[in-house]
């Protein structure tokens, strides 16, 4: 149980055959990124004057933001609603959110033509309050900073009283340690400011991301064009938060050969059917009010994708995760969580790419091999960094008695008990 588990850095070999494959994909993506910066968007993407946005916006940015929702949802339940047992999963979720949003920023930088101007939305004389994208931009920039502040205590925990720089810069050991001690004291006092800010900022930009395509009434397929879009984006982001935590936690325990935290994850997954139900109700109400049901059953590509979103991504996982028997098995949890994630990813791709119909293009947009490689490379880099972080920092919790024997420094343990 959670009371006996403490987060510790995982001591295992970094490179396994699987990690090497991920690393190879990362390298291919890095070549794509270099190619893009040297030769421009035209050389690497299939974008044109009709399709201004491709998978770098639909997947890297839009799905990236949605799937990082585990960070604010677990922070809310564990820290704001004080459901203490979920503390064991807040750190992995926070790490995913921090890395996820960092890569969202990076993804934006790769996609925008004048990447060196990425900071322009921060300049007050360029503020553009009418633009939903401005809102997204400002909130994401602020939130990524908040996430760094939220993660910093974990860095402090790892290095406090243990700063040990090599050779000449060793003289800095004392001052840095002093700074860490002060930062520790301050962050303990004001940490709540960042935790609540993280939730509010997430509400704001998750919904504004759904507002973006509301500006395109004449070029959107009626199945996805709705003024309810911001609310649907927000609810689906909240709904995918816990499944994302479940998904990662199971994958991480598989990868590190740890026992999955089934009771905690099952407990967390109890909330998912309610959130999916709310989403489904909103979606059904929206289709009914806008009188677009005929489009659902016209059996076109769009209608199939729309049905897949709702049936496979919402209804099926809602059923799986409602049933206790399935919810309390690794297989049931993993299937349910994966379906929810797949549904949200499909929804974002549908809204940004499938539903969007330029006026004069004769051929539908399909990403180039380089676009796909860069996206795959970004995801790989995220996995590699995640793995590195959980090996360096106390993120993943393990049973105390198992850890005790392996721990190289008891101060980690001591610090943690103090923090709690």
């Amino acid at each position, binding site marked *: 149980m959670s009371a006996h588990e403490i987060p510790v850095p995982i001591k295992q070999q970094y490179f396994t055959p699987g990690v090497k494959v991920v690393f190879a994909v990362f390298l291919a993506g890095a070549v794509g990124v270099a190619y893009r910066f040297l030769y421009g968007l035209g*050389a690497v993407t299939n974008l044109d004057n009709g399709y*201004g946005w491709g998978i770098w916006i639909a997947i890297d940015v839009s799905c990236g933001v949605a799937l990082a929702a585990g960070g604010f949802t677990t922070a809310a339940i564990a820290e*704001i609603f004080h459901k203490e*047992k979920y503390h064991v999963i807040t750190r992995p979720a926070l790490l995913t959110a921090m890395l996820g949003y960092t890569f969202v920023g990076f993804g934006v930088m790769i996609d925008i033509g004048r990447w060196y101007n990425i900071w322009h939305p921060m300049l007050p004389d360029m503020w553009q309050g009418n*633009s939903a*994208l401005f809102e997204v931009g400002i909130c994401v920039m602020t939130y990524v900073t908040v996430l760094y502040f939220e993660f910093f205590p974990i860095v402090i925990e790892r290095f406090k009283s243990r700063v040990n720089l090599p050779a000449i810069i060793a003289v800095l050991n004392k001052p840095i340690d002093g700074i860490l001690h002060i930062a520790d004291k301050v962050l303990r006092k004001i940490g709540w400011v960042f935790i*609540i800010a993280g939730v*509010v900022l997430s509400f704001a930009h998750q919904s504004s991301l759904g507002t973006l395509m509301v500006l395109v009434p004449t070029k959107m397929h009626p199945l996805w064009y709705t003024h309810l879009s911001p609310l649907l984006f927000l609810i689906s982001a909240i709904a995918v938060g816990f499944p994302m935590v479940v998904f990662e936690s199971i994958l991480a325990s598989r990868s590190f050969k740890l026992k999955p935290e089934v009771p905690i994850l099952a407990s967390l997954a109890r909330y998912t059917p309610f959130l999916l139900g709310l989403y489904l109700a909103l979606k059904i109400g929206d289709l009914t009010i806008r009188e677009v049901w005929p489009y659902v059953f016209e059996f076109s590509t769009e209608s199939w994708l729309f049905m897949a979103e709702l049936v496979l991504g919402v209804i099926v996982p809602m059923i799986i995760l409602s049933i206790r028997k399935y919810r309390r098995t690794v297989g049931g949890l993993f299937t349910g969580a994966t379906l929810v994630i797949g549904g949200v990813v499909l929804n974002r791709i549908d809204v940004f790419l499938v539903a969007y119909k330029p006026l*004069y293009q004769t051929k539908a947009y399909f990403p180039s091999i380089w676009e796909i490689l860069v996206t795959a490379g970004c995801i790989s880099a995220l996995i590699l960094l995640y793995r590195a972080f959980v090996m360096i920092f106390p993120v993943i919790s393990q049973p105390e008695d198992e850890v005790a024997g392996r721990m190289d420094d008891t101060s980690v343990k001591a610090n943690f008990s103090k923090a709690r």
Partner: protein
Amino acid sequence: MSLGRRDFLGLAAASSVTLLAGKSLANEQQLPKECKDACAVLVDTAVCIGCRKCEWACNRQHNLSNQDMAAFDDKTIFKIQRRPDDKAYTVVNEFRDPSNPEKPYYTKVQCMHCLDPACVSACIVGALEKLPNGPVVYDAWKCIGCRYCIVACPFQIPAYEYDNALTPQVRKCTFCTERNLAEGNVPACVEACPNEALTFGTRDDLIGLAHARIKAYPDRYVDHVYGEHEVGGTSWMYLAPADFKNTELPELPPDRIPPNTENIQHAVFKWFVPPLALYGLLGLIMASKPDKENEQEAEK
């Protein structure tokens, strides 16, 4: 452009009946060349002869591909329907009315300079701006290259310099703002038009002129001034001999586009009350006593 040249070019095309019609129509109402606010252009596709002089003038004005005038005489280009892009801010396309297929007519397309432009509302940094006197202009220095304007435009006009790796710009018709319209200049394309298919003036005057032409020659025009109401009105407007469905100009509702998102944005962030209220609420919940019962609740 001197009158002599205009007359010469006009005579060169004198076989066209539309020319004479154009001349007489333009004389119906003397429009002021100078217009300090709400500049507009009326494109009379029934008068246009498809000479592509406007393309040439635009190309020269903006130093685009710098082709000479002869390059724009090629009429075979009408076989394909072209779109404006980063190297041509305006293009002329040929269309035929299915009920009168022998007689082609021509439509010049460029940025419509909407009265309430979606691109301006979309722009994350305010790099696109609707000037009070009509033009929608772009400031490359502010632009981050997000291309939301390209996604947002209901006419699919902004074009991107995808092949420029370092300093790509959004390119589109500037309404020749750089020619200083307020000082009595007209856009390069309007100046170059030998047939007065393009009329420059204040928007109100041009709407009046357009309806007067429709009234005077009901069999020559379809009763629709394209751009008078589309997406809340545009600064470039069109007259046509047949239904606009025959052309590439999209069928659009009369509603302005930006309120779709601006109303949502401004409601959610009104005085920052909703986010601050959420912050306060969450703060209260967090400050209230930890819920110890939950500790026992986990599924075993």
